[in-house]
């Protein structure tokens, strides 16, 4: 089978199988699957608002997917995109609150840069420890995630706290907010999606066209051969973690500057972890990651609409889980497809 063709077909068929399985469950709880699924589609692509929602949800998923995917390409398992995203957004929020005096042309890139630098630095801790002491990055990044969570919680209930409501940082300056591409009612689609796509293109170029990408991949595939070829292994491990962290930080930046305009306790909301499955569904390929993120983003948006017809939100988690499972074990789907063909 054509490789590219099956890369598209498998997720689609996985979704169909997942829907078939959940049809049973929906019938069991006494709802009409057809109404449910038409709500799912309506909710994700059926209207301007739905599309806006889908884009908003897809944006950070692309970026965390890229972050984790980049790590995989470089031979590191960055399970810490969550923490890097939080730290990037948190510190950027702390600064960007005071950027009122700067014009957007400076304030926006500067805020992005801070978030990326913080994400990079935070991830580089794990990279540094791996390179210098051999500490496993899965252990260190899991720990760093928790530290980031508690640190952020401390910051927004303590030093950065504003107002009496939500634990949150002050609103960032208007000049540091991302321009709005599309506004549907109160739903604003910011330029974040453009940033995410640019980041994907950047990652593609970095990995496939640049000398740095060559070195990072070499270290990821075979550190001994890389060293033999004059490539510094520890430098590239740290660099790879840092770039991965920068992408996660960027995810934090787009959420901060394009969606919430301030740091909130739940800003990351598991998107760093989502990045793992998105990266792998997208086969660590920037273009694949965009589509994987879109798939998950659309499922999540559509799920909210499904609630209006009485299907609880947990149903969608199950559907998502099954889709991801089937994409991972794609041979199940392939086998089903081949059998179909044979019987025909």
């Amino acid at each position, binding site marked *: 089978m054509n490789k590219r063709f099956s890369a598209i077909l498998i997720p689609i068929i996985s979704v169909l199988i997942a829907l078939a399985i959940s049809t049973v469950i929906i019938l069991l709880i006494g709802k009409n699957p057809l109404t449910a699924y038409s709500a799912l589609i309506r909710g994700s692509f059926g209207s301007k608002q739905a599309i806006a929602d889908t884009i908003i949800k897809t944006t950070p998923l692309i970026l965390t997917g890229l972050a984790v995917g980049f790590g995989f390409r470089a031979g590191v398992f960055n399970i810490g995109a969550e923490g890097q995203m939080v730290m990037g957004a948190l510190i950027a929020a702390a600064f960007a609150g005071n950027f009122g005096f700067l014009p957007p042309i400076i304030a926006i890139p500067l805020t992005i840069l801070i978030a990326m630098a913080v994400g990079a630095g935070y991830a580089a801790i794990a990279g540094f420890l791996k390179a210098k002491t051999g500490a496993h990055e899965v252990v260190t990044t899991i720990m760093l995630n928790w530290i980031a969570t508690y640190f952020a919680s401390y910051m927004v209930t303590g030093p950065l706290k504003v107002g009496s409501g939500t634990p949150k940082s002050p609103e960032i300056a208007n000049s540091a907010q991302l321009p709005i591409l599309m506004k549907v009612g109160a739903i604003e689609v910011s330029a974040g999606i453009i940033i995410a796509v640019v980041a994907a293109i950047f990652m593609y170029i970095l990995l496939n066209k*640049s*000398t740095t990408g060559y070195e990072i991949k070499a270290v990821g595939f075979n550190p001994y*051969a890389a*060293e*033999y*070829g004059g490539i510094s292994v520890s430098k590239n491990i740290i660099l790879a973690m840092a770039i991965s962290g920068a992408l996660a930080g960027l995810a934090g930046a787009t959420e901060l500057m394009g969606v919430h305009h301030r740091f909130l306790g739940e800003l990351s909301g598991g998107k760093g972890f989502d990045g793992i499955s998105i990266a792998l569904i997208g086969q660590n390929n920037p273009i694949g990651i965009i589509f994987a993120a879109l798939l998950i983003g659309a499922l999540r948006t559509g799920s909210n609409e499904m609630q209006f017809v009485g299907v609880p939100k947990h149903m969608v988690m199950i559907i998502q889980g099954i889709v991801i499972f089937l994409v991972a074990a794609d041979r199940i789907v392939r086998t089903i497809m081949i059998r179909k063909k044979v019987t025909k």
Partner: protein
Amino acid sequence: MYAVEMVNIVKKFPGVLANDHVTIRIKKGEIHAIVGENGAGKSTLMNQLYGLYHPDEGDILINGQKVTIKGPKDAIKNGIGMVHQHFMLVDTLTVAENIVLGSEPVKGLNFDIKEARKQVKELSEKYGLFVDVDAKIEDIPVGMQQRVEILKTLYRGANIIILDEPTAVLTPQEVEELFEIMRKLKSDEKTILFISHKLHEVMEISDRITVMRLGKVTGELETSKTNPKEIARHMVGRDVVLRVEKAPHKSKEKVFEIKDLVVKDNRGLVAVNKVSFDIRKGEIVGIAGVAGNGQTELVEAITGLRKIEDGKIYFEGKDVTHFTPKQLRELGLAHIPEDRLKHGLIEEFEAYYNVILGQHYKPPFSNGTFLNHKEIFEYTKNIMEEFDVRPRRIQHLGGNFSGGNQQKLVVGREIRMNPKFLVVAQPTRGLDVGAIEFIHKQILKMREMDVGILLISMELEEIFSLSDRIIVMYEGEIMGEVKPEETTVEEVGLMMTGQRLVEARRG
């Protein structure tokens, strides 16, 4: 009476007909050699006998009985044992554990390690296969690993033992020992299938020979009635020059020098102890020695891959002692590593990326930031053409080339760097005679171009035929330095076992 008959075996892989109606018959109690070029289909054939692959067509008969071998389990039941071309050992387990794995002695619920050790020891003594039963595989030399593999088959009571290229990684002494063992096994009524690329070995040990080429059997020969030339012709389809001719070395200019070098191994023990020597332009210095006597560490230290504890290294008179691999390459050092899969290649990289490793950041392959793929592709095509790398496909992944072709790719890359100094370690390990001939020619061509060459090899024949000077190492020290034309294999062999030159000369 045949112990094994494989009749009309056909085995296809996607795009490759690996065995094309192969018929081979092995008599009980004989040592039967199978020879053939790289990729001729020898391992594939043996893997089917051992149940790892299943023939698309054809029959397998054991002791005259037709059998179906679904997996190694069936093979073991039929008394077949196999020592694979790439060892099948569990690095983190001990020798005894590896040997008994799969049919472990038990005491109550426990795995009876005592009994296992006892049985292994008995077996090892019976056949003179010395092993350290309690050592972990990752800590023992390849020669011992080989013995472990043989013990594995004996432990399972194999009567038919397949040895797939067992000598590729052994020293001449170890090869001698292995032959001793094989003779012992033969006298014990065991049938042995022996695959090798080294014709003199085949001549020495086998009773009969099957030659394969491109998936077909091209000849069945009685060893006593043939000669290496004839075998080689069957294998390659043409005459092969097994001896090389070279002009005497002239230059006096030092290109490389090491003084009192001290290097430690992975366990922190001194592996290279105060070694000094130099290499001149257009000169090949061969280092002979039994594996594990510091050669690996020496090469790694020289090429910047291992920390140097003490001593100095000079490159064209310049102190380069603690230089990184990159700095050394910049100065003109090239390195054909002994382990092509560990150091030489990135299996996941396409041929074209493997070919620029080490020069990837330099023009014309890169402008410092971006790679120039057009140049890279062009360059790769040239190298593949010049070094006859097959398949001639620049996008082929490094790991998907056959071993011989991987080696050609690495050799091509390093030679085309136009180095001033070339370190070559085990350049022809596992290669067929045609490929060996080719690589030797390339090394000599570099010598003609005034490159200083350090050659490390366990093949004494290779060392003798290529080197201008031979240095012998034992336990990290130099035992002596000789000229090939002024010494004998025996003398070098004695030094390799720890006698200094003077003592060796004294006899």
